[in-house]
């Protein structure tokens, strides 16, 4: 009982501190994802281009980033970029942005490739150039389809931003561990910060669900659509 009341009193008392951390976490995440989208688009186009060299560059970039842990990358940017006098905040942001750009590139590549090739053929057969087809037919559809996975990537990034704590960024997790270390009540503050993350994640998950609903409604319905809905539940049913 006293544990629980202690938890709530700590939670109330630490609220202003965590609120600042929450803002920083959100800022880190939003900026990293926005930069990641820009970078991801470039990498995706490299990956889909006709030039072997560009494809290879994109491939190596994606492999390097997806082949090493984020925490290694964050430390790497932190100590590697310091000659340029970049602050911890920007090192964390850039590290997260580069990390995300590799994943976002794959999202864009996937969504572009998921557009039925018939769309391209229809465009080409009407005399449109490949650029016109890409810009007017494929990309608008691919963007819509990329929105839900981008939303999920945002949520992943939100959680990953906790690693910025290790390069002294005062986001949520760093505040929690610092408070824990000060009071020797690590568990309490870990619980508190878990609640903050959970609430953030649930909010953004709600938004992603809305996006998914909105954009799957626009897709062409197949004849078996209605039956597919039955799939999930009751697979174990009689």
């Amino acid at each position, binding site marked *: 009982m006293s544990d629980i009341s202690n938890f709530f009193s700590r939670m109330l008392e630490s609220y202003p501190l965590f609120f600042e951390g929450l803002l920083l976490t959100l800022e880190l995440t939003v900026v990293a994802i926005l930069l990641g989208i820009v970078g991801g688009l470039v990498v995706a186009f490299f990956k889909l281009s006709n030039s072997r060299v560009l494809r290879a560059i994109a491939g190596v970039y994606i492999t390097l980033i997806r082949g090493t842990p984020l925490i290694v990358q964050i430390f790497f940017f932190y100590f590697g970029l310091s000659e340029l006098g970049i602050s911890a905040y920007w090192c964390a942001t850039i590290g997260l942005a580069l990390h995300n750009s590799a994943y976002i590139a794959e999202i864009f590549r996937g969504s572009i490739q998921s557009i039925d090739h018939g769309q391209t*053929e*229809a465009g*080409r057969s*009407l005399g449109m150039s490949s650029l*016109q087809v890409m810009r007017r037919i494929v990309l*608008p559809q691919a963007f819509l389809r990329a929105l839900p996975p981008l939303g999920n990537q945002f949520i992943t990034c939100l959680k990953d931003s906790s690693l910025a704590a290790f390069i002294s960024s005062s986001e949520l997790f760093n505040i929690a561990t610092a408070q824990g270390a000060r009071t020797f009540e690590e568990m309490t503050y870990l619980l508190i910060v878990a609640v903050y993350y959970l609430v953030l994640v649930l909010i953004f998950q709600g938004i992603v669900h809305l996006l998914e609903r909105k954009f799957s409604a626009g897709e*062409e319905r197949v004849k078996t659509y209605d039956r597919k809905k039955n799939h999930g539940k009751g697979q174990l049913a009689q």
Partner: protein
Amino acid sequence: MVKVSSLNKSFGDLHVLKDVDLQVAEKEVVVLIGSSGSGKSTLLRCLNFLEMKESGSIEIDGVQIEPKSTNLNVFRQNVGMVFQHFNLFPHKTVLENVIEAPVVVKKVPKDQAIAEARVLLEKVGLADKEAVYPNKLSGGQKQRVAIARALAMKPKVMLFDEPTSALDPELVGEVLVTMKDLAAEGMTMIVVTHEMGFAKEAADLVVYMHDGQIVEAGKPMDLFTAPKQERTRSFLQAIL
């Protein structure tokens, strides 16, 4: 209008078109039949350069086209194509689907493109659907929009690749009617289909393909009632 001579095409080791010769005169309607995998689609796609031929020549409207030397985008405007799965642009309304290519490719002023599109939609019986998105249309309606979209570029030849085979039986008729109208107006057409009724009524020539080769060609009545080749006979028996 269309003249194909000893056309060859392979996918890797698979020799799909073997020395195909085909001539289609202006205003002629040719129906291509043949079993699955015989190369019908590949032939159409070569005519439109969605696939690149390997050897042989293709001449359309008196112009011989070499993929390397020609601007294919300009050339493709002369050849309309209708696909089995419609391939309408789902993010554009019916009207936007039809005006897309004229406006973007031919730089037709938008007003004029819209006026022309409306005439075409009237013709295919969908004047009331112009503001609707494709996912609200039935298969037959989609295919008719696809025909209108291809016609909007004022092509000299129209290619149809199994335009009714993805449709529910009841919806086949409305698409065939549109195609017959088109034939009656004098459009040059090459149609891959298994709708023998259409072939009988509308085709000037029926061509039977097997294994990448044209086995036999003739007027519909002749070919259907008295095929010369054994293979043609057994194919017709199976599908009629």
